[in-house]
């Protein structure tokens, strides 16, 4: 017993630690390298087709004449309508949950339900949209049916982000407003919402940028791929960029693959612009508080 001495084997243990640290570092870098490869791959494939003509032409069976005008306009319509539906509904629900809701079982049910909806696969929303908006409400395969479906899809995200922004408003502001005799709605309208708005907008923009990248639910409700005219009303048939990309990518010809890549570049630029706006808003919010 006394003959045994404790051997810390410190060198070996330290070496294991270093190997482990570098493995974890490699794992971290892996994601970033993949992102870089993806961006380079897409840009190099699509650069050849990117031109003003590509943006202003309608789809064509001949790759050299194909463009994405109807897809861009469809995406803009979709973005606008989805924002118009999901923003008031989402912010309203968030205000209700944070400021009005009593602490009972129904409120807890609402909150759990919202968390669960955020995890439902997007294609299931597509099935819902197909049955409810396209068939039951008779919206047909219109921009409105698509926007209503995408609104339900992003609603949980808008609600959760708005709730966080509203919760971050200091208590003192509310107490001050009440002290001056404001009603609850006056307090919310004039104190809480102005302070929470940058946070709410950031969350809404980020969720919209998720919506305009969505493909599966819009395929479900029957967005078309060959549209040679811009949407003129919420009841128009439509296509959007992700659907056009899917259509081109699923064809065997290499030229169409490159067209898909060019359309991806355009879609990523739009997403980047939206994310940059969201980050700017977030920074403004940080300065204020």
């Amino acid at each position, binding site marked *: 017993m006394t003959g045994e001495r404790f051997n810390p084997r410190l060198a070996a243990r330290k070496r294991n630690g270093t190997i482990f640290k570098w493995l974890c570092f490699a*794992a971290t870098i892996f994601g970033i390298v993949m992102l870089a490869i993806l961006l380079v791959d897409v840009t190099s494939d699509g650069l050849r087709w990117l031109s003003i003509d590509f943006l202003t032409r309608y789809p064509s069976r001949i790759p050299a004449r194909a463009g994405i005008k109807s897809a861009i306009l469809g995406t803009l319509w979709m973005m606008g309508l989805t924002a118009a539906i999901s923003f008031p509904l989402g912010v309203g629900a968030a205000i209700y949950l944070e400021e009005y809701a009593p602490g009972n079982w129904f409120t807890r049910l609402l909150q759990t339900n919202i968390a669960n909806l955020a*995890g439902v696969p*997007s294609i299931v929303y597509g099935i819902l949209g197909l049955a409810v908006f396209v068939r039951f409400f008779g919206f047909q395969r219109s921009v409105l049916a698509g926007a209503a479906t995408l609104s339900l899809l992003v609603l949980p995200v808008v609600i959760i982000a708005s709730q966080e922004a509203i919760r971050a408003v200091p208590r003192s502001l509310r107490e001050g407003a009440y002290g001056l005799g404001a009603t609850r709605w006056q307090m919310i309208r004039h104190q809480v919402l102005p302070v929470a708005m940058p946070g709410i907008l950031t969350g809404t923009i980020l969720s919209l940028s998720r919506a305009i990248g969505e493909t599966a639910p819009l395929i479900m409700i029957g967005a078309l791929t060959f549209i040679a005219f811009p949407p003129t009303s919420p009841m128009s048939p439509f296509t959007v960029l992700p659907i056009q*990309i899917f259509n081109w990518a699923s064809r065997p010809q290499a030229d169409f693959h490159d067209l898909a890549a060019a359309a991806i570049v355009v879609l990523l630029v739009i997403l980047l612009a939206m994310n940059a706006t969201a980050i700017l808003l977030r920074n403004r919010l940080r300065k204020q508080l």
Partner: protein
Amino acid sequence: MESAESQTESGAPGPVSDSLVASDLTPHRKRRLVEGSINGVLFLCGLVSVLTTVGIVVVLVTESAGFFREVPIVEFLTGTRWSPMYSDQHFGILPLLNGTLMIAFGSSLIALPIGLGSAIYLSEYASENVRKRVKPALEVLAGIPTVVYGYFALTFITPIIRTIFPGTGIFNAASGAIVVGIMIIPMVSSLSEDALSAVPRSLRAAAYGIGATKFEVVTRVVVPASLSGVAASFILAISRAIGETMAVTLAAGATPRMTLSFLESIQTMTAYIVQVSLGETPHGTLEYRTIFAVGLVLFVITLLMNLLSQQITRRFREQYE
């Protein structure tokens, strides 16, 4: 004044004539009316999310009920052939389930170790500076539309696989699994990092105090202590892989098949639903109703996984409070 007002309000509206009510709208009462209606409108906004859930369940269940009147539910759940579009019709969902599970398994092999590794690095090793630069990049990775990943799989990953394994078809499970794996890395990484960062300093300090190296602190104290949070992130990521649609539709093929080979073309539940809705199947037919039955299975699986993950997270939170 105050008591008189509340009395008129709670009193029966019967004897009060309309004109009297209108002239009785003092600013105070008008305000109460506005307040009450705002409460109601906001409540309706909240109700939309409940209606969404109800809508999903009602649509899936009623349409599936029509399907199960013609196809026995046992045959649907245990059949090993799926061919609703052929003249020799079979409605066994197992090949689609098999395809989905292959994608979930393959993508987990990539995303779980890499995601956890990067979470450990970001939470335990990286300097504040590195973290500030890496996290936004991972957020960008998470924000790329799934159809873009599908394109990437088809035009970049598949050619590499076909060079290594000649004879592999254009569509194969491996390409889909790899790209879905890349897609869900940010989810595992960011949720696991939250769990690792939540482990109290005192636990680490105690381990250092009895002579542990950093490696030992991380692997024997921090990771085990946050295991439930890490597990919850794993389950959420797998659930996301199961629901993923566009990347597997583009890369993994449209061949429902009972196989375990990642080099073959397969079909997932989600890809099948897309295939039917792209086709010309008339509304109301048995073939059309398959998408609701498959959708119901997909919905139930992902819902159960999300609930399980929430359950685990809730327990984890209680641990250190």
